[in-house]
C-alpha cells in the first residue's frame, strides 16, 4: 500500500509540530524517517495511525484520501504501528497482548490455546525465549518492545510504522526484526521506520526523509545517495560538532565514593567501584545489565544487602533518597525524566527549586517566589535552557530542555556527587553535545564528582 502525506500541518498550543509536510511511503520499501527530537516524526506517525487529526492537508492510501477518527479506523484500513512509548496491558499475558483486539474465540469463548499458538508463531521469529503465557508486567523493557513489534507484525497490515523500535532491544533482536521487515517489504508492505540511530538507518532503509523543526528538509531520498555526515547536517542544519572535552585530567582527587564487594536486593554481587573527586566515571552496560538498579541501590531506593559503602571516608548506610541528598550529598538524575525526574505539570521555577525549598525558605518557612526565581534563573542561564518564562510548564519543553531542567534541579541542590542515569537518552544530537560539555565542566569547575551511566549502543 502506498501511503501519501500531502501538505499536512498540525499545531499543538501555538507550536507548529508539522508545517506543510509532504512525504510518500511506497509499497515494498523500507522508508526511514529521521530528525532531531521535536522535529515532528512522532506527530507524523500519530497522524497516519489516527491518534491525531491533521489541521490541514490529507493522508492518502493508494491515492484515496482518508480521514481517521481513531486508531481503530487506521487499523481497519490496514495500518499497523509500534509507538514510541510502551503500550501493553499489565497483568495480561504476552499472547493476549499481541492479539488483544482480535482474540480468537471458539463457541464465543476466548480460546487461550489458540492465543498461545498464534502469538508464539509471531514471537518466535523475534525471540523464542519469551514465554507467551507469562504476564507482561514481569517483562524487561527490551522484551516489552519485542512483544509490541510482534503485535504489529501479526496484524498483517499493508503499511507498518515503527517509532524508534530498536531503542532498547538487543542487537540480535534488531537483526531479527530487520530480516522480518525485509520479507514484509518484498511482499508489498510499506514500512516506515523512525529512528535516531543513523547507522541503522543507513544500513537497511531503501529511502530516507528528514524532518527538521516540523518541515521536510529531504524527501524520499534514495539511501545510496546519503551518508552519515549529510544526514546529520540535514537534521541539525549544520555540521556535526564533537564535544570539546579533554581526556582524563592529570590530577587524581581524593576518593569520594567507594563500594567494596557490594551486593544489592536487585541481584548485583561483588561490586567494587571507586569514584574520585572531580572525575567523571562512566558505567557502561547493555539493557538489562543493571546499571539503573545499581545507582538506585546507592541512593537508597533499592537495598544494599552486603558489602561496604564509603562516602568521603565515612562508612554509611543510605536508607532513602532523602538521606542520600541531605546527609551524604549524593544526587540521582533518573533516566526516566517524565516519570521520575520532573513534575511535568509544574513550572520550570518550582521544578528547579524543589531540591532547595528547605534551604531557601524564610524564617517562617515561607517560600519566596523571587528567591525561587533567582535560583532557577541562574541555572536556566548556566545550562542555556530555552524557556519562554520561568512558569512555563515543564511538559511543554522539548526533551533536551526537560533533561536540562532535571539536571539543574540537582545542581541547585549543590550535591558533591551526582549520579546521572542516561543523561542523553532521547535527546537530539546538538543538545547531546551540549550536555556532554556541561557534564565535563561540572566535574572540572564545580568540583562535583559524577557517575554517568550509559547504555550500550547497538548500531
Amino acid at each position, binding site marked *: 500500500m502506498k501511503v501519501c502525506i500531502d501538505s499536512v500541518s498540525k499545531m499543538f498550543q501555538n507550536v507548529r509540530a508539522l508545517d506543510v509536510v509532504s512525504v510518500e511511503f511506497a509499497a515494498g520499501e523500507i522508508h526511514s524517517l529521521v530528525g532531531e527530537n521535536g522535529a515532528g516524526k512522532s506527530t507524523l506517525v500519530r497522524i497516519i495511525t489516527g491518534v491525531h487529526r491533521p489541521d490541514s492537508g490529507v493522508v492518502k492510501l493508494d491515492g484515496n484520501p482518508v480521514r481517521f477518527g481513531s486508531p*481503530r479506523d487506521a487499523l481497519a484500513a490496514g495500518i499497523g504501528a509500534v509507538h514510541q512509548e510502551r*503500550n501493553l496491558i*499489565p497483568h495480561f499475558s504476552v499472547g493476549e497482548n499481541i492479539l*488483544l483486539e482480535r482474540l480468537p474465540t471458539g463457541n464465543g469463548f476466548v480460546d487461550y490455546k489458540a492465543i498461545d499458538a498464534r502469538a508464539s508463531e509471531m514471537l518466535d521469529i523475534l525471540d523464542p525465549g519469551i514465554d507467551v503465557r507469562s504476564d507482561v508486567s514481569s517483562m524487561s523493557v527490551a522484551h516489552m518492545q519485542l512483544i509490541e513489534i510482534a503485535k504489529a507484525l501479526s496484524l498483517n497490515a499493508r503499511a507498518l510504522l515503527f517509532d524508534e523500535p530498536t531503542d532498547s532491544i538487543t542487537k540480535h533482536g534488531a537483526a531479527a526484526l530487520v530480516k522480518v521487515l525485509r520479507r514484509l517489504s518484498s511482499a508489498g508492505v510499506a514500512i516506515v521506520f523512525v529512528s535516531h540511530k543513523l547507522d541503522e538507518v543507513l544500513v537497511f532503509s531503501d529511502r530516507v526523509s528528514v524532518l527538521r523543526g516540523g518541515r521536510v528538509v529531504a524527501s524520499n531520498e534514495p539511501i545510496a545517495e546519503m551518508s552519515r555526515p549529510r544526514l546529520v547536517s540535514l537534521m541539525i542544519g549544520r555540521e556535526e560538532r564533537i564535544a570539546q572535552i579533554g581526556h582524563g585530567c592529570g590530577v587524581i582527587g581524593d576518593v569520594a565514593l567507594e563500594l567494596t564487594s557490594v551486593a544489592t536486593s536487585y541481584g548485583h554481587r561483588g561490586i567494587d567501584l571507586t569514584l574520585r573527586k572531580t572525575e567523571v566515571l562512566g558505567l557502561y552496560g547493555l539493557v538489562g545489565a543493571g546499571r539503573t538498579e545499581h545507582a538506585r541501590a546507592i541512593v537508597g531506593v533499592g537495598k544494599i544487602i552486603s558489602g561496604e559503602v564509603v562516602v568521603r571516608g565515612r562508612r554509611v548506610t543510605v536508607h532513602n533518597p532523602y538521606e542520600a541528598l541531605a546527609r551524604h550529598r549524593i544526587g540521582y538524575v533518573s533516566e526516566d525524566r517524565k516519570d521520575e525526574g520532573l513534575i511535568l505539570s509544574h513550572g520550570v521555577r518550582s521544578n528547579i527549586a524543589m531540591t532547595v525549598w528547605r534551604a531557601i525558605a524564610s524564617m517562617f518557612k515561607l517560600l519566596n517566589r523571587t528567591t525561587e526565581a533567582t535560583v532557577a534563573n541562574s541555572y536556566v542561564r548556566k545550562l542555556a535552557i530555552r524557556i519562554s518564562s520561568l512558569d512555563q510548564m515543564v511538559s511543554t519543553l522539548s526533551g533536551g530542555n526537560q533533561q536540562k531542567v532535571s539536571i539543574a534541579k540537582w545542581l541547585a541542590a549543590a550535591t558533591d556527587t551526582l549520579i546521572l542515569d542516561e543523561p542523553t537518552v532521547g535527546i537530539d544530537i546538538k543538545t547531546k553535545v551540549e550536555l556532554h560539555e556541561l557534564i565535563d565542566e561540572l566535574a572540572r569547575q564545580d568540583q562535583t564528582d559524577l557517575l554517568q551511566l550509559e547504555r550500550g549502543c547497538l548500531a
Partner: protein
Amino acid sequence: MIALRRLLETEWGGLALIFGLGGGAAGLLSASFFTEFNIYVMLRSGCVGILVAFAQMIVLAVGQMNLAVGALGGLVAVLFGAMLEVLDLPLPVAIALALLIGVAGGLFNGVLTAGTGIGSFIVTLASGSMFTGINVGISQSKPFHGIPAEFVAFGDARWSFMPALLWPSLIVAPLLAIFLYRLTPGRRLLAVGGNAHAAELSGISPGAMVILAHAISGGLAGLAAVLAVAQLGAAQPEIGATWLLISFAGPIIGGASLNGGRISILGAMFAVLVIALIENLLVIVMVDPYWVQFTLGALLLTTVGLNQWRATHAARA
C-alpha cells in the same frame, strides 16, 4: 504445605484462610457461634454486600469508580416497592423492571463519563445525589410495605445454614468470571482498565467499555437492591445508604487495583464474608454497639494491610 502456599498466593486464598480461622476462633470463643442459625444469620448479612461489592468491582475493573452504587440501589429499591404496592405488578415483572432501572442508571453514569470526559468520581458523586433525590421525592422518605409474602419468605428461607439470599451471588459470581475471563467484551473491559491508551491504540474503544462497565454495575446494584428488599421485608428508602464502605472494601481487600485492570471475584466475595464474620463476632463478644463502626474501620485497615503484606511477600518468594 505446597497446596497451602499456592492457596496463599492467590488473591482470595488468604481471605479464605482468615475466614476459616476466624470462624474457628469464634467457635472457641462462643458456643453460640457454630449454631446452624448463627452461621445462617452471618452469611445472610453478607448476601447483599457481595453484589454491592461486585457492582463496584466491575467499574474498578475498567479503571473508574462508582460512588452512586448505594444511591442507585436505594432508588431501585423504592421503585421496586412502588411497582409492587402501588402499581400491583406481578413479582417477576417488577424484578425485571427493577434490574432494568439499575442498568439504565448505570448507563446514565457511563454515557456521561465516556461522553463528557468528566471523571467518574464527579459524575457518580453528582448522579448519586440525583438518584437519592428521586428516591426521596417518590417515597417521601416512607417505606413501601406491600411486598408479596412469598418474596419476603424467600428473604428468610434457608437450607440448613445456607440462606436462599446467597443464591443470586453464587450465580452471578461464575457469570462474571466467564464474562471477564472468557468473553471478548470482558477481556476488552479489563484491557481498558489496565491501560486505556494502549487498548485504544489496539483499536478498542475505551468509551464503549466504560459505558458497558457502568451498565453492568447499575444492573448489579439493582439486583442488590431487590435482595435488600427481600431481606428487610420492605422497600425502605434508606437501602443503599451504607453501601459505600462495603462496595470499596470488598473488591479492594479482595485484591482489586484502584488503578483498574485487576480484580478478583472470589477475593471480593471472601472479603465481604470476612467483614460479615467480623460484624458477627463483634455482636457475639458484645462490643458496645456505638463502637462497632470504629472497630470495623480499624479491622478493614488491618485486613488490607495484611493482604498487602501477603502480596509483596508472595511476589518475592
